């Protein structure tokens, strides 16, 4: 890490300390520590069942999970005390591994409700219709999302690639400070992967940050991480630069398991 001096002006965005969480009485997260600064891209890798998706669900506030210890702050505010919708307003975005289909709710109504809820939270009036539709059009272009998809029900009948593109489209609409992308690469062919990764890269600014959760190094060819963390049995057991992902690809997760045993 000595080669990359971190400037003093860095802005701490997410700070997770000793986070423990369980679902149905089973402890999944066993003391996570993680700090993410503005402008950074972090990758979290790890074998199946290590707690990657649980971490994303807990940070987004899925009520099915219970936090049993530790803390998480976003811009210094207690993230865990906020309702999921408030976390969104405060700048957190979760790109789902399995985007949820909502038959009967059109993408347009869904996004309008989301945008206007955020504006209401900040004491702003609802977005005028023409401005909203222009925003939809502009942001659709980021991930080359078809106009037809935008007029359909949320994720209903979308292909795997379309669903993931739709996640990045929503990210573009909501302009979050911190995006957690949970296995956005799963189920994508190489072309869709490129479109999705390009979308993420286009949305990157010095003021926002991204956590990419993935099994494979492949996605990291397109989205270059500043840090790579290995999650194993509910803890971050190793942190490094992009080279760690390559090493992991080469040596497999058994290497981690051996190191930890």
């Amino acid at each position, binding site marked *: 890490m000595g080669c990359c001096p971190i400037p003093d002006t860095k802005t701490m965005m997410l700070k997770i300390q000793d986070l423990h969480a369980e679902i149905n009485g089973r402890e999944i997260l066993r003391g996570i520590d993680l700090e993410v600064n503005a402008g950074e891209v972090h990758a979290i890798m790890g074998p199946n069942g290590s707690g990657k998706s649980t971490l994303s669900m807990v940070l*987004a*506030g*899925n*009520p*099915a999970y219970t936090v049993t210890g530790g803390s998480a702050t976003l811009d210094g505010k207690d993230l865990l005390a906020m*309702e*999921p*919708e408030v*976390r*969104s*307003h405060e700048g957190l*975005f*979760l790109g*789902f591994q399995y*985007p*949820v289909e*909502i*038959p*009967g*709710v059109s993408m347009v*109504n*869904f*996004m309008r*409700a*989301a*945008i206007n*809820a*955020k504006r209401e*939270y900040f004491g702003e009036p609802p977005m005028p219709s023409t401005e909203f539709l222009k925003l939809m059009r502009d942001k659709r272009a980021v991930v080359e999302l078809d106009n037809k998809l935008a007029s359909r*029900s949320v994720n209903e009948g979308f292909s795997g690639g379309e669903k993931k593109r739709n996640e990045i489209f*929503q990210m573009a609409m*909501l302009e979050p400070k911190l995006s957690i992308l949970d296995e956005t690469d799963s189920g994508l062919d190489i072309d869709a992967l490129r479109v999705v990764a390009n979308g993420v890269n286009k949305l990157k600014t010095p003021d926002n940050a991204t956590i990419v959760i993935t099994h494979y190094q492949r996605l990291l060819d397109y989205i270059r991480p500043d840090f790579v963390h290995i999650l194993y049995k509910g803890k971050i057991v190793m942190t490094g630069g992009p080279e760690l992902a390559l090493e992991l690809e080469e040596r497999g997760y058994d290497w981690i398991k051996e190191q930890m045993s």
Partner: protein
Amino acid sequence: MSSLEGTVKRPEGGVVLAPMSQAMGMLPAGVSLPEGALATAAGNADPLLLYVPAGVRIPQPLQLVNKLQRGRADADISALTIVLGKDASAKLLVCQHTVGDVVADTKAVNDNKVEIFLAEGASFDYYDLEETSEDTVRHSLVSVHQQAGSKALLDILTLYNGDTHNECRCEFLGEGAELKLYGMAICDRQRRLRFDTHIDHLVPHCHSDELYKISASDRADCSFCGRIKVHEGAVGTEAYQSSRNLLDGTDARIQARPELEIYNDDVKCNHGCAIGQLDPMEVFYMRTRGIPEHQARLLLRQAFMADVIDAITIPALNQRLRLLVERRFAGDSDAACGACSH
């Protein structure tokens, strides 16, 4: 006494809308009503008759407002007989409202009968929209008799009610007829609602498609009982039934009983029934996009009714019902329908 009021003042093209006692003299020479229609007339004091002559297609939907009277000693009985001649077509919306001053500890008791006779090739869409009150007890029976090649759509929509028993009885008397049967009910508080449907496939090559949706919350008590009977010899029948129900809270009740009786082999039939709650992942997904929980639930409840609303063939009613359902789920307790004059 019928309390039905029509908005069509001067029907044209030989269309008759009048109490049966007066209507008989207004029918064109040589026209006689189906036997069943006369039987209905005999059984009720004086039903309202809507008669559409053969070949007449009424482009505009008709609307009737049924004012259910409070404060009567006996049940308020209203009856409507609809007769469509060969290749005639019409659409009718009947709005049900309870009127009069609320009388403590009494119910407004109502009995509504609708008989529909469709001649060969006739096409008729019937909508019953109930926006009554918790002190209303209502029994509604809609019967349809379809001749060959006729098309019927029945849509029974309950937004506000007290204790309602909605029955639909449909029979196919001629080949190649089609029936679409829809129902929607939103019940909260201690409202009760019962849907009973009975479809008789008596002849070959008819098609029935049934979709009922109920949302029950608080202490509401609802049921759906749907029977489809495919009689011997009714080959080539297609009959589909779907009952989907949304249960909210621990005290609401929904019972669903799909029944298929099939007495021959050459048929296509299926039925599906589901009772469930809003999907927590759908709610969570919407919340992660910043949509507050109550609004997410509201949008999902509206979405649940979307396919029934989409099936409405009167564009103005379609739009209006979308709004009414939204308001209904949002907790608007004002059952007054602004579109109906009181």
